[in-house]
């Protein structure tokens, strides 16, 4: 049993006849892990399973070695910012955080200190004494986040945590995620804002219809998608000449001159062979290459290839 991983062993969850997730096997290391998938793909089910709010129909789950059906242990190491935009009635932001810390058994002084710290982290100190019911959508999102982090958990599970946040708060929140991830914590994030997921994730888990369709670092996931030619952008001074040479190769299926005339966007079925050939071309001709970079090894593109929908490619 690995005490540094969140593991799912052949986990399935059904809601009556309806499939939540099926035969999921995962080993999630520390860092920021993004769950990506369309509505109903099983993201929330996966999160609810690892936080013990629901139980698997089949299979075994361990969160840093703890079974989710052991709330006394799990609650100490996990913080969950759930999707529900609901709060106990009649409480101020301060009371909301403080009350649930008291239920954890902490003493008054520790609760007060942790509450103040959590409020400060999410920039809600000024609104602490206002009722949560009077908060804006963004403030409610932040107070949920504060409640999830107040006890300093090792594992943070965040269901659409960027929803309702303004750009400034979004940037601050992403910076927090990165800080927690860098500190060796597990930060599990579901989000439909793919470009932001792409920017912050150490690894991604792509879900579709209850199945994990891909997992790992995004570049690795992209390279596994063999049926979609890799897109590569080459910035150079003679893209026409380069295109002419490349079209002689079987593995290059498409090449487009960049609109600014100083680059070539191509699609190849064999990226390794392409890079070797590009080296040869550079040596043999007077072509000056400024940069070579994959153009579709981001979450957006991978999402598009594996799941389809709104994910845009270059």
């Amino acid at each position, binding site marked *: 049993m690995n005490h540094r991983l969140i593991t799912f062993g052949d986990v399935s969850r059904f*809601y009556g006849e309806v499939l939540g997730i099926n035969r999921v096997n995962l080993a999630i290391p520390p860092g920021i892990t993004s769950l990506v998938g369309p509505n109903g793909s099983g993201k929330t089910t996966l999160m*609810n399973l690892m*936080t*013990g*709010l*629901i*139980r698997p129909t089949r299979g075994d789950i361990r969160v840093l070695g703890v079974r989710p059906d052991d*709330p*006394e*242990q*799990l*609650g*100490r190491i*996990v*913080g*969950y910012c*759930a999707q*529900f935009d*609901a*709060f*106990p*009635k*009649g*409480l101020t932001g301060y*009371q909301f955080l403080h*009350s*649930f810390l*008291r*239920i*954890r*058994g902490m*003493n008054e002084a520790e609760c007060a200190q942790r509450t103040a710290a959590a409020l400060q982290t999410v920039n809600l100190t000024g609104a602490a004494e206002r009722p949560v019911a009077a908060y804006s959508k963004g403030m409610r999102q932040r107070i949920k986040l504060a*409640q999830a982090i107040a006890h300093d958990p090792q594992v943070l599970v965040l269901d659409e945590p960027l929803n309702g946040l303004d750009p400034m708060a979004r940037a601050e929140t992403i910076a927090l995620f990165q800080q927690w991830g860098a500190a060796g914590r597990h930060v599990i994030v579901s989000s439909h804002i793919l470009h932001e997921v792409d920017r912050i994730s150490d690894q991604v888990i792509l879900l579709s219809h209850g199945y994990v369709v891909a997992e790992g670092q995004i570049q690795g996931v992209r390279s596994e998608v063999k049926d979609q030619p890799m897109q590569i952008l080459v910035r150079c001074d003679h893209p026409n000449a380069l295109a002419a040479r490349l079209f002689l190769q079987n593995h290059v299926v498409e090449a487009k001159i960049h609109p600014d005339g100083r680059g070539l966007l191509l699609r190849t079925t064999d990226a390794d062979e392409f890079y070797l050939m590009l080296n040869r071309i550079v040596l043999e001709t007077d072509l000056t290459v400024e940069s070579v970079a994959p153009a579709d090894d981001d979450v957006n593109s991978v999402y598009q290839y594996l799941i389809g929908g709104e994910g845009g490619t270059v």
Partner: protein
Amino acid sequence: MNRLWFAQIAGVIRLEWKKTFLSRRGWWVYLLALAPVAIALMHSLISLRFAARRPHTVFQDAQAFAVAFEAFFLHLGIFFGCIGIFSNLFRGEMLEKTLHYYFLTPMRREFLVIGKYLAGLIVALVLFLLSTGLTFWLMGRHQGAAWSDFFWHGPGLAQMGWYLLVTALACIGYGAVFLIAGLFVRNPMIPAAVVMVWENLNPFLPSLLKQISVIFYLKSLCPVTVDVPPPLSVLVTDTNPAPAWIAVPGLLLVSTLVLAYAAYSARRAEINYSE
């Protein structure tokens, strides 16, 4: 139980009071509980004013309280008060989608059930014990020295003690029943209606069925017997009241068993707000 468990239960009680019982939502229960106090006060004031026109004895006042206690406190006040207090402890959280906050805390779910039950029970006991005591006291207060004599030197104090015990047992028993109803049933008013019909039919049920109810044991403990008035009285089946040594521990045992099952169920419960 160790100190952490006590601290967690105390934390649940504090939070429940803060968000439910000290809020505007709980007002109707307070009004329900204190209504008989107001009626008893009115009775006292009217009797003082019209004492000459409608004279009555302290024993008639004690009998009037017995009728009011059975008809109002047992069948309506405590019953509906407990529905309001206990059935929402879990069901209210599910409807408002806030139960997951509790489920994510590192506490045994059994203690969550105990904490919520105790929060409700303390409120119910304070309200209804206060209401029963005050109503009893005010019912004959206009009799002056005669009531004081009845209370301190006659059967008054003992009667009030029994009524308070019955009130407490009613809160404990109905509290447990409605807490578990709130855990299992989407609309707790349905089991509440079934229980109410069953409890109200109690005098007319055969002896064996009578004993499968809360009200039978509560009535057995009441110090003054209240007969069903004619013509319904012909339908009443005679059954010996349960002795106190059975009724009191019996009700406590049944309540404990119900709570134990609620705790077991909470341990296995999942969050599924769309259910």
